């Protein structure tokens, strides 16, 4: 399997809390890889480690055979032109219109004339069904529209990798369906590699080529969606089916006894 990202023996802690212990995984090139796991596992942190916004204590993250954490500032910013991230909030620039948001990376990184930039921006907005909203400000958009506008911006430079941070959170079923279709369509039509961090098991298993389930700082299970659904690991089964009871307890583990506290 040809890989775009390779994570090797990654150890990462933040504010005294161990997030990852000896994490290793591979993201295949040109595929949709889903990263699943309970809340607080550090899935978003993993995306930030891949983008070198965070640095691990140990281990390596390779992007197309380049160690992202060994790069100097200039080389890192050069490499980031090949990757993009769709943030949970959309992270659109609030003082710019949708059009200017999508045009932003093009104006920063290319020397294209303004009329050509306008053409590219409209193509990207058309691809996510947001061309009619080009003059709107982010404050005038719904959550789903913001996500789509941000998606148009994230593909503006035709990156090799798009990382989606919880793209379905807070969306209605129709918008979820639209986003699922967009992620799948963009992945196949642009030939990009997609990494989707999410809790929405049902939606992502429809389109993912490969799935990683993270918990307790390491990989709990991985495989194709079919392999994951057939898994015999009780923790994987509990997460996939959203079972109330199982290896993961309902109550957070405390130090004292409930009876004594009463």
């Amino acid at each position, binding site marked *: 399997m040809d890989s775009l990202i390779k994570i090797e023996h990654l150890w990462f802690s933040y504010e005294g809390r161990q997030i990852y212990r000896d994490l290793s995984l591979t993201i295949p090139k040109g595929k949709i890889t889903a990263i699943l796991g309970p809340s607080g596992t550090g899935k978003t942190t993993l995306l930030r480690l891949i*983008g070198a916004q965070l640095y691990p204590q140990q281990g390596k993250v390779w992007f197309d055979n380049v160690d992202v954490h060994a790069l100097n500032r200039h080389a890192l910013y050069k490499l980031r032109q090949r990757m993009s991230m769709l943030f949970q909030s959309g992270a659109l620039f609030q003082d710019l219109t949708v059009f200017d948001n999508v045009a932003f990376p093009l104006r*920063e990184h290319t020397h294209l004339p303004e009329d050509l930039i306008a053409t590219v921006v409209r193509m990207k907005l058309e691809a996510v069904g947001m061309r009619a909203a080009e003059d709107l400000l982010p404050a005038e958009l719904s959550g789903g529209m913001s996500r789509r506008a941000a998606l148009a911006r994230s593909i503006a*430079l035709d990156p090799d990798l798009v990382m989606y941070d919880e793209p379905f959170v807070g969306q209605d079923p129709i918008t979820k369906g639209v986003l699922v279709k967009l992620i799948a369509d963009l992945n196949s039509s642009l030939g990009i590699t997609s990494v989707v961090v999410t809790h929405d098991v049902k939606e992502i298993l429809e389109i993912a080529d490969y799935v990683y389930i993270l918990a307790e700082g390491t990989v709990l299970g991985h495989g194709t969606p079919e392999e994951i659904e057939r898994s015999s690991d009780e923790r994987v089964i509990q997460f996939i089916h959203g079972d109330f009871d199982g290896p993961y307890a309902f109550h957070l583990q405390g130090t004292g006894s409930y009876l004594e506290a009463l």
Partner: protein
Amino acid sequence: MYEFLGALGRYGLKKLASLGRSTVMLVNALWGVPKPGKHFPLLVQEIYFVGVQSIIIILVSGLFIGMVLGLQGYNILKDFMATGSLGTLVALAILRELGPVVTALLYAGRAGSALTAEIGQLKASEQISAMEMMAVDPLRRIIAPRFWAGFISMPILSILFCIVGIYGGKFVGVDWLGLDDGIYWSGMQNSVDVITDFYPMLVKSLVFAVACTWIALFNGYDCKPTSAGISAATTATVVQSSLAVLGLDFVLTALFF
């Protein structure tokens, strides 16, 4: 005792680390050749935000401080039959101290706090992270133009403050209390010197500009990305900037005069 020393050490190390991070931020922001086509419009926009939009508060404050100085000065000098020195008193007090110091304090309260809140909000809404992931350096795109805008605006605001303040003193001393117009201006002309009074005012305002803008930008950039974090950072900006201005003013006054 050991606990106290330990806490003191931890506090010192924390502050030292913070100073280090703020220096790294500033150096990275200002390092490298600016691209005029991209950076000049951003600079103009920020000068409008931190400079032009501060003009009203600076003019009004300068006018009232000059008027108060004129009134107090006239009443005190009258007892010594020295009202002829009112122009000198107003001009020197404003040029040497009140102009740069009050301008910097007002700047910290109006523009500095706004800079911190704006950058904190950009951070909380992940716009800074988004910029980083788009391979656009937020230090060059966000921090640098705001820093230079403060550096350019503050001396101009100080000069405006001084002009209006001196006229404020004149309105009270000459137009209201009846001091001779010629005496007011000639006293000032005889005692105020460009090198010993005007240039130190400019140097002070430049130093205050660096201190206030740096503090404001770092507090915003380093704040916790929550509403409480932004609120704390904004407060810290006003408090730290005010103390820095007053402390630096003493050092600079000792050096210049």
